Every structure is written in structure tokens, then in C-alpha cells.
């Protein structure tokens, strides 16, 4: 038999009843019918507590719940019904001796049970109901064919903690089963770099997997799988900031989302044919095409958010980025050991430019003391930003329309953040990988050199490297768009953002495997903080001019 369904372990059914004898009968029945029974033990509230623990421990998909778990003669005891919500995503079937329609209705409609069965009923009716539910939630029961199977393995390796027993990896298939309740066959096509072997990647451990999914013969949709709480967060952000808040047609529509024990999935539908991520698009396309694509995205699709920019004076950009990224990036920075710069730069360059250690500079000038925080430059502009707009989160379709995904960090942030993010992503992916060191150095000087957000000098005759030129041109397009969309003219805000991004990135890179990337990022950061510190002085400093 083709497909992976048969290899998956049987469905786990949690049995919660305060009558021991009933429990053992249900256990026997469940395993007789081919399920794996999981027994909640203990009495009264301990039983309830154990049920919650066991449900999670075994990633139970189904549960048979007795209505009264504490006191059978207490009419107000509906502890079983109340438990239903707490053991989700397990689907509960309520089993009760109170064979009334009222209880059935209450269980299903108010408490979220999927079904109800009277205890006195024929065991076959319990069997039928279990089966019916199992068909809904389990890929295995449905015999849903998902191919290619290696993608499933990759997803498992990406999303699950290594310690999680492989038997619970069936959640991946179940997410698909529940996202596509009517599908018979699914074909997966990965969009972003999961477990990329390239030197470039967004982060040491990718947090999500984006796939193009072909359901039977239908138009493909985008599915993103991620850890459960991330899906939860993304769905809520999506509803708050994206749904009906973007402009035009080329916007994602949330079709369905599923949250299981460890992971969850979001199905986003779109119009047209999404071909690739922006990262690949950038590599393949001309600057003109890239410009058109970015322009469409920033000035049209996302434009509604920039129209509602809020101005706030005397606000620290540092604080602003901490709000979006959380405090841990700064904690990482504080614990960061800068590698020996001499080795990284070669030819004593580090010493010659007399650039400061950027991490120290960050701590000293922003994070250490609120009063001496130098990131308060002019009036800060706040807008709803994507928050994580790297080149893998932008997808491009065959008509060069940019589609955005991954809204986990979407919310109020620095209005320039998304522009900076995409610029920095291009730099770190492409430029940092470039072996031509002088090119990179010149690129850094150029991007740090602008004094107005939208202005950047691109015609450096010494930049012979075509790839770097393309990067610089793209950056100038991004900068122009940034000024046009946000009306922020003073480029210091932009450079600060770039600086924070560099530190964020440098401290997250695996120093062993991506040494060069890390050092280059640090160098960019160093140049940026030099620029910010000597803002009113000529750029580049005279002594830097004859550097390679």
C-alpha cells in the first residue's frame, strides 16, 4: 500500500470515568476496537488533574468522558463536561448514565463535546461514535494520502522537540486531515527553507514550515505549520491586523486553522499561482521586476496601515524594538562574546577604522540607561507592521505580486521596521555570503551614508561587483518606498533599525557554522554605530577613504 497512513500508530483514546469497573470495560472495548486506551487515574479532583496530564502526555486525539466525575449524586456536578474544554484538542465524547436529551445538548452545544452516548446503550453505538469522530480528525483513519512523505519527516524534524517520541508525529498528518476535511490526497511542496543546508537561513531553528498544498485536483493553497501557540498567536494577529485590513486582491485569506497538541496549521488561500519566495525571486529577477513587486506590496497591499501612522515624540527606538522582539534579543546581546575582530576583518581593517564594538555600543548607548538612550531621534512613527518581513515570508506569484504570510509578530511597531527587515534580510542572505570583502565593506559604507531616508548613493565606481550593485539598487528602492510610505525623512531612525537588526542577527547566528556571516553582520553594526555616533561629521571619515 502506498502512502504513510498505515505506519502511523493507533489513535489514543483517553478514558475518564470515576467508576473503576466502567473504566476497565471501556479500556477493554477501546483496545478491542483498535484504539490505544489511555486511562485517567485517581479520584475526584485528582482524576480531573490526571486526565489533563494524561491527555497531553499521550497527545490523545479522542476522549470518553463521564459527565459526573466527582459526585454521582450531585446534580450540579458537571465536572466531566467542564473538562472537555481543558483537554482540547482531544475530541470528547460524553458518556453518561443520565440518558437525557438535555444533557446531550448541553454537552455538545455548550461544552464543546463532539458527541454524546448513554451508558446503557449498546457498546456498538459507542464504537460507531468513536469511529465517526476518528474519521474526522485522523489522517490515518481517513486513509488520507499525503505525499511526498519526506516532507512530513522534514516538518517533524523542524517543528517537534527532539525529545518527543516519534509516535506523536502523527499530529502533522492530522493537521492536514483537519485542514482539508474532504480531501483524499494531498501533495505538498515546500516553500521556505526548512532545514536548509545553505549557509544562509533565517534563524538557527526555523520556527515554521510553509508549504504549497495541492488538495485533490483543486487549486493549491498555502499552509503554514508551526508550534501550536504560534499558530494561535498568528491567527489572532491575522484577525486583528490582516483580515480585511490589507488593500486589493493579493492578500491572504485565512481558510481554516487547526491547533493540535504540539503543532498547528493555518490554511491561507490566494488568487493566482504562487511560485516562489521573495528570496528566490530576488535572486532570479531584474531590479525592475523587484521594484515593481516591492512597490505593489508597500504602496498598495500594506498601504492602509501606513495611512494610519501614529506619531510619538521622545520615544526610544530601542524600547520600540524590544516591544516587538521581546526582551531576549537584548539579553542575548548582553551575554554575547564578540569574536576576535582582527581575525575576521583581516589586514587589520578593524583597527584602522577604529570602529567601536557594536554590542558594547548598544548596551552603553541605549539599553543601559534610559536617560542616555540615544535612540530617541526625532519623532518616532508607529504603524502596524508585519514584524517579521524577511524574504521567506514574502511569496511572489507568477504576476510578480507579493503575498505576505506569517503574522505572528504583526502589530504596532516602528513604521520603518518592515522596510529595514527586508533590506537587512537581503544584506545578510546575499551580501554576507559574498566572498568579496571590499564589496561588502563599500556596501556597508554606502547604506550607512544616507542622511535622508529615501536617498542613498548607488553609483560607487569602485563597486564593480554586479551582485552587490543589485543589492544596493534594491536597497535604494526599499529606502525610497520607506520614505514615501512613512514620510520619515531623517535616516537616523532607519539606521538605528538596521543596527538593531544586525545585532539581533549577529547574536543568533551559530558562530561555528556561520562564522563569516556573523562577523560581517557585526562589521555592519559597527559601521552603523560609528555613523550614528558621528552623525554631523562628513561620511565616510577621511581615514576610511583609502580602505579597500
Amino acid at each position, binding site marked *: 500500500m502506498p502512502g504513510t497512513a498505515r505506519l502511523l500508530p493507533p489513535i489514543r483514546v483517553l478514558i475518564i470515568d470515576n467508576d473503576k469497573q466502567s473504566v476497565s*470495560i471501556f479500556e477493554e*472495548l477501546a483496545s478491542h476496537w483498535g484504539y490505544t486506551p489511555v486511562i485517567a487515574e485517581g479520584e475526584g479532583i485528582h482524576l480531573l488533574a490526571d486526565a489533563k496530564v494524561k491527555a497531553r502526555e499521550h497527545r490523545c486525539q479522542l476522549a470518553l468522558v463521564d459527565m459526573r466525575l466527582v459526585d454521582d449524586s450531585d446534580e450540579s456536578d458537571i465536572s466531566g463536561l467542564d473538562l472537555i474544554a481543558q483537554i482540547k484538542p482531544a475530541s470528547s465524547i460524553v458518556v453518561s448514565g443520565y440518558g437525557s436529551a438535555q444533557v446531550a445538548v448541553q454537552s455538545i452545544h455548550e461544552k464543546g463535546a463532539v458527541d454524546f452516548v448513554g451508558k446503557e446503550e449498546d457498546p456498538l453505538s459507542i464504537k460507531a461514535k468513536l469511529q465517526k469522530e476518528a474519521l474526522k480528525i485522523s489522517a490515518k483513519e481517513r486513509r488520507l494520502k499525503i505525499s511526498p512523505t519526506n516532507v512530513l519527516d522534514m516538518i517533524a524534524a523542524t517543528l517537534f522537540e527532539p525529545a518527543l517520541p516519534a509516535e506523536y508525529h502523527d499530529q502533522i498528518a492530522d493537521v492536514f486531515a483537519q485542514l482539508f476535511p474532504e480531501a483524499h490526497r494531498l501533495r505538498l511542496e515546500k516553500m521556505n527553507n526548512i532545514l536548509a543546508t545553505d549557509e544562509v537561513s533565517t534563524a538557527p531553528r526555523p520556527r515554521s514550515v510553509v508549504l504549497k498544498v495541492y488538495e485533490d485536483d483543486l487549486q493549491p493553497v498555502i499552509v503554514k505549520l508551526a508550534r501550536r501557540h504560534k499558530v494561535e498567536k498568528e491567527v489572532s494577529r491575522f484577525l486583528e491586523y490582516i483580515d480585511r485590513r490589507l488593500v486589493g486582491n493579493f492578500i491572504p485569506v485565512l481558510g481554516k486553522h487547526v491547533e493540535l497538541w504540539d503543532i498547528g496549521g493555518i490554511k491561507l488561500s490566494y488568487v493566482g499561482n504562487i511560485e516562489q519566495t521573495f528570496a528566490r525571486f530576488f535572486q532570479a529577477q531584474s531590479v525592475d521586476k523587484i521594484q515593481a513587486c516591492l512597490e505593489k506590496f508597500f504602496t498598495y497591499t500594506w498601504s492602509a496601515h501606513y495611512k494610519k501612522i501614529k506619531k510619538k515624540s521622545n520615544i526610544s527606538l530601542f524600547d520600540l524594538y524590544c516591544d516587538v522582539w521581546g526582551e531576549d534579543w537584548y539579553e542575548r546581546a548582553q551575554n554575547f562574546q564578540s569574536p576576535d575582530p582582527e581575525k575576521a576583518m583581516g589586514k587589520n581593517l578593524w583597527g584602522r577604522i577604529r570602529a567601536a564594538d557594536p554590542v558594547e555600543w548598544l548596551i552603553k548607548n541605549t539599553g543601559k540607561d534610559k536617560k542616555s538612550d540615544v535612540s530617541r531621534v526625532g519623532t518616532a512613527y508607529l504603524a502596524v507592521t508585519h514584524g517579521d518581513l524577511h524574504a521567506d515570508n514574502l511569496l511572489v506569484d507568477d504576476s510578480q505580486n507579493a503575498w505576505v504570510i506569517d503574522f505572528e509578530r504583526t502589530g504596532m511597531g516602528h513604521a520603518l521596521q518592515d522596510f529595514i527587515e527586508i533590506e537587512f534580510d537581503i544584506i545578510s542572505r546575499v551580501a554576507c555570503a559574498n566572498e568579496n570583502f571590499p564589496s561588502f565593506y563599500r556596501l556597508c559604507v554606502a547604506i550607512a551614508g544616507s542622511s535622508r531616508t529615501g536617498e542613498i548613493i548607488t553609483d560607487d565606481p569602485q563597486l564593480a561587483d554586479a551582485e552587490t550593485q543589485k543589492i544596493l539598487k534594491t536597497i535604494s528602492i526599499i529606502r525610497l518606498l520607506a520614505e514615501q510610505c512613512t514620510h520619515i525623512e531623517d535616516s537616523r531612525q532607519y539606521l538605528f533599525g538596521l543596527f538593531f537588526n544586525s545585532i539581533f542577527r549577529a547574536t543568533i547566528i551559530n558562530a561555528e557554522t556561520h562564522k563569516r556571516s556573523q562577523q560581517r553582520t557585526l562589521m555592519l553594526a559597527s559601521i552603523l554605530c560609528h555613523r550614528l555616533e558621528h552623525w554631523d561629521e562628513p561620511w565616510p571619515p577621511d581615514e576610511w577613504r583609502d580602505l579597500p
Partner: protein
Amino acid sequence: MCRVLILDDDAYGAEEVKMTLELNSNAKADVCVNLKDAIALVTTASDSGKPYEIFLIDLILGPGKDGIEAMKILRRASPDSDAIIFTGFGDMESGLRAYHAGAFRYLSKPFDNQELLYLVEALKEWRKIQREHSWQKIFGGMMEAALKQKSFHAVAKVVVNHSLKLGFERAHLFWVPTREEVNTGNLFGEACAGKDSIPNFSGSLFPDWYGMERVRKSRNAIFINKDGLNERGQGSKGSGSKNFSPQGETAVLPLWRGEILIGILLLDYGRSDKILSEHERTLLNLFARQVSVVMDHASIYASEKWALKEADIIRNIVHDVTTQAAVASLPKLLEEVRNQIGQLMDVSNFAVALLDEEINELTFCLLCEQGKPKEGVRRPASQGLESFLLKQQGGLFLKNGDVKEFVEKNHIRVQGRMPAGWLGVPLRVGGATIGVLTLQRFAGDKDFSERDRQLLVSVADQLAAAIHISHLAEVEREDARRMQNLQRASVDMLWLARENESHLWDVVLTLATANFGLGFNRALLLTTNDNQRFLYGETGIGSDSRSDSERDWKRDEKRHYDFDAYLSDLQANKIIPTPFARRASKIKIELDGCPEVMRQVIKNGAREIISESDVHTKLPRDINRHFSFSTCAVLPVRAGKNTLGLLIVDNKHNRKNLDEKSLDRLQTLLDSAGLVRETLTQSRNSVSVLEANYDIMGEAGNQSLKDTLDHICKTARAISESDWAVIFPILPGGTERYKLDLNTIGHDGALKSPVRSIKSNPRIGGITQHVLEKGELIVSDIDGGGSMISRLNLTNSHFIRSEGVKALIGVLVRDPYSEEPLGILYLDYRRPREFSELEVRHAKSFASLAAVAISKVRHLDEIGQRKRLRVTLITTEIMGKELGLDEILAKVLQKMQGLFKHTELCVLLYDGDDHALKFAPATLKFYHIKNPEFKNRQIFPLGQPERGSIACKVAEKTLRTRKVEHINIPDVLSDRDYLPLNPKTRSELCISLMGSTGDLLGVLALERSASVFGKDDIDLIKTVARQLGLAIERAQHTERLRFLSTVSAMTAWSSDIAHDMNNEVGKIRGLTYLIREFSSENPKICDYAAQIDESARLLSSVGPWSVQTGHRIPLDDSIKQCIKRLANQRGIQVIPQFEASGVYIHANPMELQRILKHLVRNADKAMSRLPEKKIKLSTHPLRDGRVEILFGDYGSGVDETVRADIFRRATSTKESGGYGLLLIRQLIEAMGGTIKLLPSDETDLGAVFSIRIPTANMPTPTE
């Protein structure tokens, strides 16, 4: 034209739809067979500003392609479009999904063309309404926002901004400031909005605008298309026109103010070539009107603001003098003027004096001598240089040294120090000199210049006006204050006079003389007695001593004595009488001997002025002896036509004129006082009439109104010597037309025609109308002619003619309190008769007597109403607090006992099944049967031919009519229905109690031993009965609820058992299932397991917890099957009488068995002491489609006290349980049946239960 996009993968079908639409509906349709093309078309259309209005989309666009998703995508591209989804036949689910996804409707295929057209038309109509709503909302928003703006420009901005919300790309508001500009075609840019609007628009001039000519002719909006615009645009010289070349239609909205074009609002779609629909055009006309209104409003506001600014400038130019004249005090103002002049010249000797013409005195408002101000200086106007100034018209300008010569020459006596030079200017207003302004120079001072004189002359002009204004304002203020006091006094006088009549005159005189009043110096009041023969001195205010008076005035002024202070002094008896008051009482003058003037005043009621010289002759000697009046006014104190007295006022001390205005005011005051006085007298008179006719009124309480009125007529006729007296009462409540109360007409005297003839013509004729309007009608001789007689056509009046009436008095009977007409009194005479004043008064006093009688009756009515209200309140209150029937009845009856003295009350409840009335249990506490014959009578069956009791008659009547009925028997012994429960009862009233749905609930019976029930009683009792009906109804609902809650409590308990049982059953079934699964090879074990499973299943399906429903069972057989066994078990003999063979019922046999089991058990217990236990069990079909089971035992029966409750509450004579019968009732009711205990006196058995259950017989099969 409506733009439609059809999206269907079936091209043929789509074309067909397109054809249908284009042929039959005003629509242009495009067809797409795939979504991609559709998106392109829709996007293009939307971008070009002419979006599709309607999408028609097939649900299935090829495999897996959902039309609803497509619709969502298309609508996102074109949000203003609406969609109709075609679904498969009967696919309602998709239809609903489409609807929820935002489709307007769905249409299942295949559909009729007409169906499609209807739907499209409906959608077009709907869109129109939606558009209208949204536009109206914008219009409203515009108005609201505009009216909040203060500046014209801001309003204009609001208008253009709101115009854009209507979907236009640009809006330009032109303004036409003047009519000339309209004619020349000049327009001014006022405000614009939108992308690509004309730059520097605001404030620019657009001469000779091409559209002007057309706009000027049209009150409605005009619409110019692209071509029209370009064509005209060529010739336009407008500076902005070259920038103005819209592709689509341009709406030109003229803004009119009345007949004047005030502006133009130009709306267009910029680069999109959109065309407006007819409907949108209509709406835009409305918009134009609204814009006109707000712009007009704004422009008026702007011009008003301009005028204000101008006024500000003018005010700044005008000297302080004029501005302050009316508000600042005169001396302060003059001092200010002096200071101003002082900047130019020496004003150390400066004076302004005002002339008091009456006493020819100059009062110095400002007198400054050697730089020092002097106050309160007055000089005769005939002295000094000022006198010269006053006599001649111009100013007097005497240079230093000239004064002496001038004075000597003109024989002028100068007071004080002789000045060297003197400059005086008269202050003139109109033609009159009101005062002088003077400036003096003493020897050594600087001389005047000509310029000084000119300045003073112009200052004097200013000053004169200012002083005049100041005076007028002062007078005005003073007047207003006085008026206020007078008005207040008129109101206060009445209650003052009521408290103490002498206060009335004190107040009047005080107001006449006080500073805060009219300010006359002195006043003396004389009143006449009734026959107007004598004038008596009533009171007075004032004194002969001028110094005393002035001292008093000054004192009052100083402490700001006012009316309120006076009133409180008056209340506190703190007023010290003046000499006039003390002396007044000495006056008594015979009117006949009075001087003519005084008599004239009394007679004509018009005031006279007696000049000082005539006082001696024209005032009575008596007055002159005690008082010395100067020129004085004699005013009548009037009350209607009567003159009650005279008031003499003068201004002896300050010699002020007795001006007309003040006298008018005084007269008004006196008139109100006279009225107050008269009102008091009248009421005193009516009191005395009442007293005099005490016997009449004394009886009034005990007899009917008619009798009382008859009595009044009799007395009136006797006193008036009339031939016929009649009182027509007017029915209350008629406000527009009066109606006579024909039942209570009172009359006396012999008529030729029958008395009923006066009732035959109830119409209110001319005479009556006249009396109603005028209050009275007095005719001395019908044949004597006169305008009134002919106007009222008296000679032709039927009554007057037939009765030969020659003279009559008609008087309106008026409610003494509310003035409302209550009736009319007529006294008719068969001979002409001159009526004396006294006779008229008599007639009036009888009228007021009648008024009292009528209003008293009405008053009693009112009391009855109140009593009813109280009863209602009490019962409502009780009902609100209690739920149980017994409690409610007990409390209501207890209250009723208090309200109805000497009355026995009882409530009987109707039992529909027994068709009988039964005592309500609570009643027996209040009602006791005293006749031993009926001692134990509890039930009163209806339908008895005789002696069924009056209550039963009422109940029967009510059942027939379904209305509240009552029977009132004044003498019970004469009624054959009466059931003598209590020998003492003489009269009885029974009234039915009904529920809100018209069902008979019971009867309320009242008995009295002494008096009878009157109409009032009945009304009151009806109210009670209504309340009781509601109370009983509600209580019965409550009983039902209580029963249900008891049952549900039991059910809950049984569900616990059920739970435990089901739990175990579940285990058994689970285990047997496993046994069978694991031992499938052993058939024997499987069989055993199957048997165990079956038993377990049975176990869970019996008992009250079982959800198993019943089925058709044969009744008799089912009973027979189990009753024998049940009876045998307990050794009871069954006497069967089954007559329901072939009758089926719908029931669970287990339940039926359960019922019987319980009844047998009960019977067993009831017969526990009997040697032989028997039960009687019978069945028989009823005609109403039910079957009755009668179950009787031979025990002692059920105790009366619990009888009513056995099926309602848990009652038991035994120690435990008691829920059994409740459960049985529940089971039977679940079958749709009823159970009850039959009345004990109907059978020879003990307790007999009747169970009635609907039969479930199949129609007889016909083969």
C-alpha cells in the same frame, strides 16, 4: 443601464442568461467563463469608475472551483457590486453559504427566465435603496457638520468634502456674492476638494463661466457630459477651465436662496467616465437643496458678523456718554463728562441742573463749586441766571465782567457769590428744555473762549440726550418694578384677603402710596354698604404732615423697603397705622347728601379728578373736616358692575402730577381688589344661603339628586312667585358640547302640557345656549320686544308658546369651585314682570344651592371612585405578595370584610368537571352556614331547576354569556332560587368571577341582613370581582407550577437512580459484548451473553427514567391482565364492570400497571380495618373521545380538608410518602388524561377516582 457580469463555465448557459437580461431588462451583460478573465474585467471596470453592478455567478465553475469564493474575490475587486449565485437544484446549503458570504440572493437551477428577471429587478431596486440610504446618510452628515461650523469657508469645505463621499472624484464650490455677478456670469472659487482639483481655486475669479446661462435658468441640477463640456469649454475664458476636463459626467448643482442664485456646486468623476443614474440625479437635486440651505445659513451668519463689527466701530466712535446713559447713574455720568471737559478747560465751577416743571424747581444733579461737589441742592427755577436761560431759547455767554451788568439789567437775583463770567447752555430734548449746564468764572479766573462755548454747546447736546435716555431708562425701570409688584399683588391679594379681609385694603393702599408701589402721597378708602346709601371710611394711608411723610419715605428708601418686606411685616402685624387710617373710621356719609362728583363716580364707575380749588365743594364736608386734600383723584372700587366704594388719592406733599398712567394702574389694582372682595362676599353669601337652607341640604344626603332639585325648585317657586321652576343638570364630562341629564331634572309647578314634555327636547337650544354663555337671561316681557327677544326667537319657543310664558329668569348653575357649568335654573312667569335686583339675587342663590346639591352628588360619585380605587389597590397588593389561592382569598376576603360593613362574603369556585360550585376552602373561615339543614353542604351543582341558589344562577348565566354577570336580590325571600343558608339574610348579591380568557372561575356572594346593595356597592363589588378573578386564575397557575416543581423534584431523584442503574446496565452490556466478541466460537456462551444483554436492556427501559414511549394497547385487556394479580396479592376482591372493549389507548403498559398498583395499594390501606376488602373497577367510553376508568374502594373516603389538595401537593394521612398520587397524576397527564377524586356525596363508595384518557382507536378498516 445596468452593468452585469455573468461568470459561468458553461458558456452556452451564460449567453442565454445574457440574452434574457439584455432583451428584457435594461441591462448590459458581459460573459466570462473563468475567474481570471472575470477578475480582469471587473478590475478594469472598477478602475474606470464604471464598476459592474451585478455579478451572476454559477456556484460550480469547473471542478473544485467554487463560485462563492470567486464571488468573494470579485467583490473585493469591486466592493460596490452585488452578486447572485446560481446553485444546483435544491441546493439550499450552498445557497445559504452564498448568502452568508455576501451574495444578495441565490437562484437554484434550472430557473425560469422570469424568475431571473424578477430577482435582477429586485436587486436593482435594493441597490437603489441602499444607495439612497448611504447618500441620505452623507447628506445628513453634511448638514450636521456644516451647522457646527462657524465660518463660511469652513462650511464650504464641509460641503465639498462631503460631496466626495458621494463617490465623486472632485468637487468645486463656486460662490456668487452679488446679483450683478450672477448677471455678468462671474463666479468666485470658494472651496474645492478631490484629487486634481483646480489649483488656487479658493478666491479665484472665474468670469463668464460657460455653464452660467443654463444654470441660471434651472432650479434643478444639470448634468453635462464630456462632449458638452469640451464644446462649451472652448469658448470659456475661465482661468481654471483648462484644468477642468472631466471624462465622465459633470453634475452642476445650482444653489438658490429664494429667487437668487448664490452659488454652484460642480461635481465630477475626474478621469473616470462614469455616468450618473437617474436615481442618483434625483438624489443630487435633494443634495443641492440641502447645500443651499447650509450655505445660505453660513452666509447670513457671515454678514451678521460683519454688521456686528461695524457696530463695534461705531460704538467706539460714539462718546461714553451715550453708551452709559441708560445704565450708569446720572451723577456718575455727569462727573465723567465733567472730567472729560476738564481736559480742555477749567471746570472747577460746573453745574448741571434739571428742571422740575411742576414745582418749577431746578434740581442740581451736579454742582461743583470751587472744585468741590455739593449734593442735593435745589433752587426755584425762577431765580438766578438759570431762570433767564430757561426762558430764552439759546445759551448765555457772559464774559468775565459782563455778569454784573447783565444781572442788573435783567433784574436777576443771583444766589451765593456773584461770578465774574458765566456760561450757560440749556439742555434740550425735542422742543423742551429739561435743564441747564453752567460754567462760572470768578474774578481772577481765566476767561472763556469762543471755542469753550462751542464745545459746551455740543457737549450739552450730547448730555441732553444722555440725560433724557437716563431718565427714560430710570422711569422704565421704576415702572417695570412697580408693574411687577402690582401684578404680584393681584395674585397675592386673594390669599391675603382670605386670611384677613382687612389686609386686602391695607395692601391696596400701601401699593398705592409706597415707594415700591405707585407712590401717591396719600390715600383714603371709603366703602358703601349693600344698598349703597352710605359711604363708610374704611381705611387710609398718609398724614397731613409733609415732614412726617418725607421722613417715612426716606427711611423706607434707605432700608430698601420692598413689597416682600412689607408683606412679612403685615403678616407679623408690624404695620403702624398712619393718621389717615386712624381717622378714616370716623367717616360716615349719606350718599344722597353727597356732592354730585362722588355720586357720579359711584354710579358710572369712572374716576374723577378734583382740582385743589374744587376740593372744598366737591368733596363731602365730612371728609374735608378730617382731611385736607390737595388736587386729588376719586377712583371707584369696582366689582363687575357694582361699585363697592371710592378711593381718594392725592400728592399733596411732593406736588407731583396725578398722571394718567399711574391712575390707570391704580384703577387696575382697585379692580382686582374689588373682585377679590366680591368673591369673598359671594362665598360668604353662599355659606349663609347654605345655612338658611340647611333643611334642604340636610335631606340631600338621604335622597336622590332629583328629589333634592325638586325640593329646591319648590322653594324657589314659592319665594319667586313664579309659575314654574325647573333645574336642568348638565351631565359631567362634556367639554365641547353640553348634555342635559334628563333623569335628574328637578321641577315644580303645574304645566299645561305633561311634565315629560320638558324631557322631550333634550337639544340645547338658543335660550339655554345663551344662559350657558352669558350666565343669565332675564326677560321681563316676551311680547315687549327687544333685540335679545328676537335674536333668541323667544316668542317662537315651543315651551314658551305652549305654556304662555311671558317673563323668565334663567341662571347658570355653576360649580362654586371649578366654575364649571353644572346646570341651568329657570323661573317662568305667565305674566310680564319687572325683576328687582333682589329677585335676581334670589334666583342666583337658588342656582348656587342647586350647584351645591349637584356637585355634592358628583363629589359622592368621586368618593365612590376613590373607594373602588382603594379596593383595587388592596387586592392588587395582596395578589402581588401571595401566590397561593388560599392565602390570596383569605387576605382579600379579610380586607373586604373591613370595607363592607355588616356583610357576609364568600367565594365559590367553579368545578368544570362536576359542573358545580364549591366553597373555596379559605372562604369557610369567613362564612358559616347557620341553617342546620345545609350544615354540610359543600357543593352546589348547576343546572338545578329550582332552589339551586342565586350563586348558581349567576354561574349559569355567565357560562352562557361568557361575561361578568351579577344578580342583586333586595329581598331574598321573594326569590325562588334563594337557598336559605343563613336565616338572617335579607338581601344578596352574587357576581361571577372570571378569568382573563372568559372562563368562569367562580362566584362571589355577598349577603346582608339589614340594607340592600345599591348601585355604588355593585360597581365596587364588580371591581373586587374582577380582581378576584385574576387572583384565582393566577393562583391556579401557581398551583400547577407547584405541582410541576414537586414532580420535577421527584424526577430528579429518580434520575439519580437511573444514573446508577444505567451505569450498571452499561457495564453488563459492555461485558456481554466482550464475551460475545471473544467467545464467538462458542455459540452457547454467545447465547447466554445475548440473554444477559437483553435483560440489561429491559432493566434500563422501565421505570420513570425510561425514555421509552408508549404504544397502542387495548385498555380493558391491559387492565384485566394485571389487576387480578395486584388484587390477589392483597386479598382484595375486584368488582369489574368493563364496558370499553375494543377501546385502545396510547400508553406504556408498565406505567398503566404502575398506576393501578398504586391505586390498589391505596385502597388496601383505606380498607385496612374492614373484614372484607372490595374494589369496584369499571371502564366505559365517553362521548368526547375519551375513556373513563372508575376505581372505587369501600373505605371511609378522603377527608374533606385534604380532598382539594391530594393531586396538588404531597399529602398523606400516612406517615411517609404521599408523593404517589402526584406521580400518578403525572403519568396520567403524560398520557393526555386527567385524574380526579369524585365528590364523596355522589357515590355510596369510599374514595372514587375517575381517570379519563383519550382513546387511540384506529379508524375501522373498511374492506
